[in-house]
């Protein structure tokens, strides 16, 4: 458990709090998901609702990885958010946890392939791409995507990447820029 040594109690609480805060904000988007699903279901494209919003749900992991810069922070950030969601009003049960692991690990992978050195657009884009690939691989099985027609698969993949890049990349960058300007991260940012 060498990686665990780098984590301080306040880091752990911080990452869990951010996950819960984001979860509380996302709850306000549930209606967007419901409306989109209901509108798109009759034409068999309801997956688009999921694809469009998935970047938002993967944001805690990508942001935690980018902000805390500790090994495992992206995975842990997303996993903690999922654990809390599972107990608090999440009706998806254990599959929330599995999604949390895949999303968190997907985000982490982007930072791993850039060797935890590129905390810039390269790292963020890599993270958005790996999150898209890993979660898409999981959805091939879980949501039966492997049975879909090819054009739809490509459409879903592209939309998912755009969503990841917009929410996990651009929005994360805008948020962390605000944090940098306010100099609040001095204590944790240097790790």
């Amino acid at each position, binding site marked *: 458990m060498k990686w665990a040594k780098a984590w301080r109690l306040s880091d752990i609480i911080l990452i869990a709090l*951010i996950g819960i805060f*984001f979860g509380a*904000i996302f709850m306000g988007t549930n209606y967007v998901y419901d409306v989109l699903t209901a509108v798109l*279901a009759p034409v068999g494209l309801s997956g688009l609702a999921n694809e469009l919003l998935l970047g938002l749900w993967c944001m805690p992991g990508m942001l935690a990885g980018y902000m805390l810069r500790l090994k495992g922070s992206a995975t842990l950030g997303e996993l903690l958010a999922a654990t809390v969601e599972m*107990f608090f009003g999440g009706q998806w049960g*254990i599959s929330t946890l599995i999604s949390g692991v895949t999303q968190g690990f997907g985000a982490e992978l982007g930072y791993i392939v850039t060797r935890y050195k590129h905390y810039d657009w390269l790292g963020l884009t890599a993270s958005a791409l790996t999150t898209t690939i890993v979660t898409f691989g999981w959805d091939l099985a879980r949501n039966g995507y492997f049975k879909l027609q090819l054009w739809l698969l490509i459409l879903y993949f592209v939309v998912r990447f755009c969503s990841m890049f917009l929410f996990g990349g651009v929005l994360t960058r805008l948020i962390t820029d*605000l944090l940098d300007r306010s100099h609040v991260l001095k204590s944790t940012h240097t790790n």
Partner: protein
Amino acid sequence: MNPSIKLLLLFIIALEISFTMIISLNITLVILAMIYLLAHRTKLRTIGWLLIVPLLPAIGLWSTQYINGSGNKTLMAWVLFTRIYAFVFTGATFTLTTNILQLADALEQNWHLPSKFAYGVLAAYNLVPKIQHEVQIIRTAGLMRGQQLSFWSPKLYFKAILVSINWSQNLAQAMTSHGFVEDAPRTHYRHSVLCWQDWAILIIGVGLLQVGIFLVPWV
């Protein structure tokens, strides 16, 4: 039953049914989970709610396969429809009968999760109601200055993170001042036991699942 073993069993079930295409198996799991929930005195209203909430995404998955699928479209459509319910109901057997405190105890005492993770997350979890309130405060404060903070506004998240940083430091200080020492051995008031019955249930459960997947000739 030990929460960590229960979680592991349900995790294996969720993982395995994600890769199988047996409608009757999914339905069997839903029925078994429902019996378990009723035996644990779950309210009928809660069960009704569990049936209604996944309906929209389930219909969405169903229609996607039915209209845009390939191969045996009807089969896959119903597999996914029932799979969602299997996820929800097996998951509910955990979340409706176990709380996060029991799980944290089990992971810490039986699986040697560092106590800072167990108690750190618990500390944050107990703030959930306060966090929901705080999000409203941030939004209202924005409105007072004529700013509509929506879920795509960086400012909303920025303010949430500021509050998180503040609270996390306060909480960590409070825990330290109450005698919590990171990475130090602890004694326990609540004991989490992991006995051979737990392992037996896990092994039998996983075994039965394999029988259900590979041996039973479902129609």
